[in-house]
């Protein structure tokens, strides 16, 4: 039991160290910015005073390390600083806090990701299990070909095909409003959800299939088969308990993939989520917003991978005794 805690503690520590270094990387990006971006943000007509005030407001007169700690402490309190947009040369500051801009979009993205996950995960697991069981059948082969195609195609290709196919029936612009009911929201995100589902189901299904086939080839399954266990018994009593770790990894990996896929899909369907916000801010060089978005994406990604590893540790006692 003590070893279990040791392994988990080590993994958690590693996760936090990674998170720390990643946040350091994302923060130091701002100091890589070429030239004087105070001038670029405020415009050519900004006076020396307003420029100085802007720099002082960002703390550019302080050393980098201190700025990092100011920033990260703010982030932990939920304060991501304020956006570059809305500032102008007169020095009159109309900018909004990054958190205020981000919060509703983050909610939208989480909604889209959750709906997709709820549909995609069970579907992928069932399909993966079935293709592994009926290996090399026509069902398996056609599923294989189909998933290879959806993996190969870029997300926007799938999205446009769906728009052309279902554009008459389902809304192609997912302009959700805060006061909408659940049903109306679901109708609006139908096409984005289907696009994302197609992509990650393909990945997840192939990985689940590979994990189970790998497992079915191991000697103890052979032993169970020779001892006369039935097919269902082998799958559910012998194979599945050992398959949870790889399956958990597959799920976490694909949910992390969802984080990336969401960017393109949100732009295609002009869905006001965090991915679209990031792309827009990259275009307008709104560095504080870009940093906040990158940090959220990276943190989600790291935490999901951490979760997969932890599930792997819990369900596989052999990992507790590494040689």
């Amino acid at each position: 039991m003590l070893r279990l805690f040791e392994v988990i503690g080590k993994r958690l520590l590693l996760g936090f160290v990674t998170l720390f270094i990643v946040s350091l990387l994302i923060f130091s990006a701002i100091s890589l910015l070429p030239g004087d971006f105070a001038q670029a943000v405020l415009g050519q007509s900004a006076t020396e005073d307003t420029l100085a005030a802007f720099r002082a407001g960002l703390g550019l007169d302080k050393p980098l390390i201190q700025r990092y700690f100011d920033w990260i402490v703010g982030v932990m309190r939920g304060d991501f600083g304020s956006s570059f947009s809305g500032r102008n040369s007169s020095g009159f500051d109309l900018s909004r806090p990054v958190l205020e801009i981000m919060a509703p979009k983050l909610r939208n993205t989480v909604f889209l990701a959750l709906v997709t996950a709820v549909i995609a995960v069970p579907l992928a697991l069932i399909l993966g299990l079935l293709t592994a069981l009926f290996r090399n059948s026509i069902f398996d082969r056609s599923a294989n070909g189909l998933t290879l195609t959806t993996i190969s195609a870029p997300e926007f290709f799938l999205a446009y095909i769906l728009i052309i196919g279902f554009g008459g029936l389902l809304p192609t612009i997912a302009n959700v409003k805060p006061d909408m009911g659940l049903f109306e929201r679901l109708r609006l995100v139908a096409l984005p959800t289907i696009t994302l589902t197609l992509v990650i189901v393909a990945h997840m299904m192939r990985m689940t299939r590979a994990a189970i086939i790998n497992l079915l080839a191991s000697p103890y399954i052979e032993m169970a088969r020779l001892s006369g266990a039935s097919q269902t018994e082998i799958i559910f009593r012998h194979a599945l308990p050992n398959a949870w770790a790889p399956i958990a990894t597959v799920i976490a990996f694909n949910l992390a993939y969802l984080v990336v896929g969401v960017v393109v899909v949100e732009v295609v369907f002009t869905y006001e989520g965090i991915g679209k916000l990031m792309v827009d801010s990259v275009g307008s060089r709104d560095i504080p917003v870009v940093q906040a978005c990158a940090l959220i994406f990276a943190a989600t990604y790291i935490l999901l991978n951490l979760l997969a590893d932890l599930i792997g540790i819990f369900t596989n006692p052999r990992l507790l005794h590494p040689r």
Partner: protein
Amino acid sequence: MTEIKPKAAPSALNETGAVRLRRSRFDRLRILLSRAPLTAWFGMIVVAIYGIAAVFAPWIAPYGEAEIFAKADDVWSKEHWLGTDQIGRDVLTRLLYGARNTVGIALGTTMLSFLIGGGLGLMAAIDRGWIDQVFSRGIDVLMAIPSLIFALMLLAIFDSSIIGLILIIGVLDATRVFRLARSVSLNIAVMDYVEAARLRGENMGWIMTREILPNILPPLIAEFGLRFIFVFLTIAALSFLGMGVQPPTADWGSMVRENARWITYVPYFPFQEALYYALKPLLPAGCIALLTIAVNFIVDWFLHETSGLRDV
């Protein structure tokens, strides 16, 4: 790969007495190709066509890359087989030049990432000391950030020139190559002949290129195909988002973006118009999808041939 050629009736005497003939490279290639499945042939033919289009684009294309004609958003005609885009450039010409630019950039990026990732991976595997530790831990951290997000962040800071794009994606992708190169060469680096080379006093470069590299080539080549697909799709996605290849350079990702303005109206157009406006963004997008599928097929076949991998 030696083969005994029976001259007369197959008997033990003839077999042992026969001259052992070595098959030429060409023979081996011919035999390999004759066993290739249909999907692999499909992949190879598609890649060949793309290669021809990319190399000979300036000679095949009917017009200049950024030549602008009077009629914008034109439908298909004798002069413009696939119509013109939103500012009046010939779509067919842009597609052909796109093969050159998009595939060229992706290929250059993949090569860069193999040069960096492969080199460092081999070094780490041979060293197994502090170099290995430093690289491996550093790369663990870099891999913790999704590369599209990282690339977007870097592009917010640096200009998205083609060189910048190749450098950013190449370095980010090198992390994946490093992992593979290191893990496959670890098994080779402990072999006796590597030890012998080291005792002989060969330097790091010799051990990397002459002793280890030839033995890890098959997985690396397969990985090259897969990384190429990934890089190609990442750059296409970035260009589609408007952060990648910038106009007037013809590029499939940006072409999809530029030509997609009418796509949401397609279901409401009469059939003929619907077809025109649907195909404009779908053609470049389809070009991207077709190439990735083709390369996937070839890699599948290659993995099957070199590793005897039966499934997955």
